[in-house]
């Protein structure tokens, strides 16, 4: 089984997804346990893959026994093994978390929801695991299409938000496909390793440059890089809470992963970062994203919408970090990739609990929450500290690497942007804590006063995943050194 583990990560949720609607016909409640079963089996395979990678080094898996570059190949190296486990864990926690929200928001669509949910996990895992450019496009579209559908289930306004996301996301995916076409034109290959071997002789070719530009533009749409982020706040705010707990942490981060893959595996870092003026572009976009998104977050009265802008800012951290173009910064980017998935999952889980309790998700809802939901709020404090960058949470260490990288690159603007954004995050979350402790007794609070009399702690199926994520944030912080030396270090390209 261990030899086949890489393919099983993909195939198990795929097969389970096809059977979910049938199971839904028999008994709707079973779909929940069915999805948990699928994702735990897939997660075990992901962990097996990671351990065998640590023992033997990079794993190549040829689909159907076809040798690359003709056949499709799955390649598992240190970077994507980490991502595989991370995605599996996120999906597993999100699926456990989803039960009560679905019962409350759309019980009649349970089977459909879990089908799409599993398919989306297939999409994410596929993007990460594949070593083939066109295969990546297909998985990218699987992940995006299921994302559109999941978002469209949501509250009022979700349909239009989802429709706009369809339009923008399709343009992004089409640009990616064009990039594949341009590279195929000059190399005749779709395999990433093969492309990496063939391309260096062609770096002066205009076709390769155009293809590269298409890749960057396409991936930038998918990761919601400023100024292409306009679809994200609406879509993730309106999405139903169990869906946003899966889509929001993973979609943008997987797109960042694709960008790193293209920059450092398909193309050589020397081409991506030295021949082209890409670092300057990425840095200025990253800094703009951080500053603009932080300011926008400050202006929001809706908790989920505020989180969306934080996600945009976090993408800015990572893209800016790649733009710094030195190995310390890239380490920071990869560690932040891990941290950000966990933190965003936690924050959207808290947002989901708030939505579950109050049917809305405005910041004013937090009034008095610390008394009524102490455990949820304790988790929120951990996530907030991680976003701000307080040790020993994970966020501190990745920000530390990023700032160190910026200092090595002597880019003070990025340092300033990072620190400003951290300070704004302090304001954002302490505003919530202040409301949560009930220090501010505005007229707003009175209006909420009677309604919240019967509010208790969140149900266990929502609370436990949230607390596990909170512990995860702290553990990633404490064990950042082993993660760095055993996994991320190998994934950093030689610069």
């Amino acid at each position: 089984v261990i030899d086949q583990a890489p393919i099983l990560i993909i195939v198990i949720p795929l097969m389970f997804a096809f059977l979910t609607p049938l199971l839904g016909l028999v008994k709707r409640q079973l779909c929940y346990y069915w999805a948990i079963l699928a994702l735990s089996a897939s997660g075990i395979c992901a962990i097996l893959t990671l351990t065998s990678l640590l023992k033997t080094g990079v794993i190549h898996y040829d689909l159907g026994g076809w040798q690359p570059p003709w056949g499709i190949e799955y390649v598992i190296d240190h970077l994507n093994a980490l991502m595989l486990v991370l995605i599996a864990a996120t999906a597993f926690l999100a699926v456990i978390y989803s039960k009560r929200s679905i019962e409350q928001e759309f019980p009649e669509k349970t089977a459909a929801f879990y089908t799409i949910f599993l398919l989306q996990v297939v999409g994410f895992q596929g993007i990460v695991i594949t070593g083939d450019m066109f295969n990546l496009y297909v998985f990218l579209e699987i992940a995006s299409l299921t994302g559109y559908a999941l978002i469209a289930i949501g509250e009022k306004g979700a349909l239009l938000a989802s429709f706009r996301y369809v339009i923008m996301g399709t343009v992004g995916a089409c640009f990616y496909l064009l990039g594949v076409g341009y590279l195929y034109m000059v190399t005749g290959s779709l395999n990433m390793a093969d492309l990496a071997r063939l391309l260096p002789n062609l770096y002066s070719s205009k076709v390769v440059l155009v293809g590269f530009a298409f890749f960057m533009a396409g991936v930038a749409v998918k990761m919601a890089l400023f100024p292409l982020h306009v679809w994200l706040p609406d879509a993730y705010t309106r999405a139903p809470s169990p869906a946003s707990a899966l889509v929001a942490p993973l979609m943008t981060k997987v797109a960042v992963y694709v960008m790193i893959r293209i920059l450092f595996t398909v193309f050589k870092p020397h081409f991506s970062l030295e021949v082209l003026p890409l670092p300057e572009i990425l840095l200025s976009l990253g800094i703009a994203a951080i500053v603009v998104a932080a300011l926008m977050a400050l202006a929001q009265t809706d908790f989920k919408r505020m989180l969306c802008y934080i996600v945009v800012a976090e993408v800015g951290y990572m893209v800016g970090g790649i733009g710094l173009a030195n190995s310390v910064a890239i380490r920071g980017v990869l560690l932040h990739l891990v941290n950000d998935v966990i933190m965003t999952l936690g924050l959207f889980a808290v947002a989901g609990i708030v939505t579950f309790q109050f049917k809305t998700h405005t910041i004013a809802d937090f009034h008095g929450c610390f008394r009524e939901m102490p455990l949820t709020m304790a988790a929120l404090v951990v996530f907030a500290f991680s976003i701000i960058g307080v040790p020993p949470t994970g966020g501190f260490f990745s920000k530390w690497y990023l700032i160190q990288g910026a200092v090595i690159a002597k880019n003070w603007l990025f340092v300033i942007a990072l620190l400003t954004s951290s300070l704004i995050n302090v304001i954002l979350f302490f505003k919530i804590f202040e409301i949560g402790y009930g220090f501010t007794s505005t007229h707003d609070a009175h209006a909420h006063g009677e309604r919240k009399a019967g509010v208790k702690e969140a149900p266990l199926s929502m609370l436990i995943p949230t607390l596990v994520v909170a512990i995860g944030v702290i553990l990633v912080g404490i064990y950042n050194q082993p993660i760095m030396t055993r996994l991320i270090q190998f994934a950093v390209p030689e610069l």
Partner: protein
Amino acid sequence: MLDFIIGKYNYWMYIVLMMVGFYAMIGKRNLVKKIIGMNIFQTAIILFFISIACKKGGATLPILEHSQHDGAGHAVNVSNYLNPLPHVLMLTAIVVMVATLGVALAIMIRMYREYHTLEEDEILRMLQ
């Protein structure tokens, strides 16, 4: 200049089609027109990929003809045949595009049931 345009007319068509689709997606306020624009945009990419597969000098479809005399033994000359791989890729891409179109249409139908209009401006006004 004229040679440059006529000699590569399929690539020019692909760019024109893509821009037509792009304009419809950005400029039009009606959701159906946006979807049609999206579809034109995607079709342009199919044209581009099919153009890649072409070869100079009368290459034909990659269907191997078994000659009567020597069975399977004769060598295949690659330059006589079109590259089949872009076609195969496009078969997959068409499936993806159909799925995208399906999802977009499904969302649109639900929007029509909810708002009884497909004009973006009117829907936005109702959402206020």
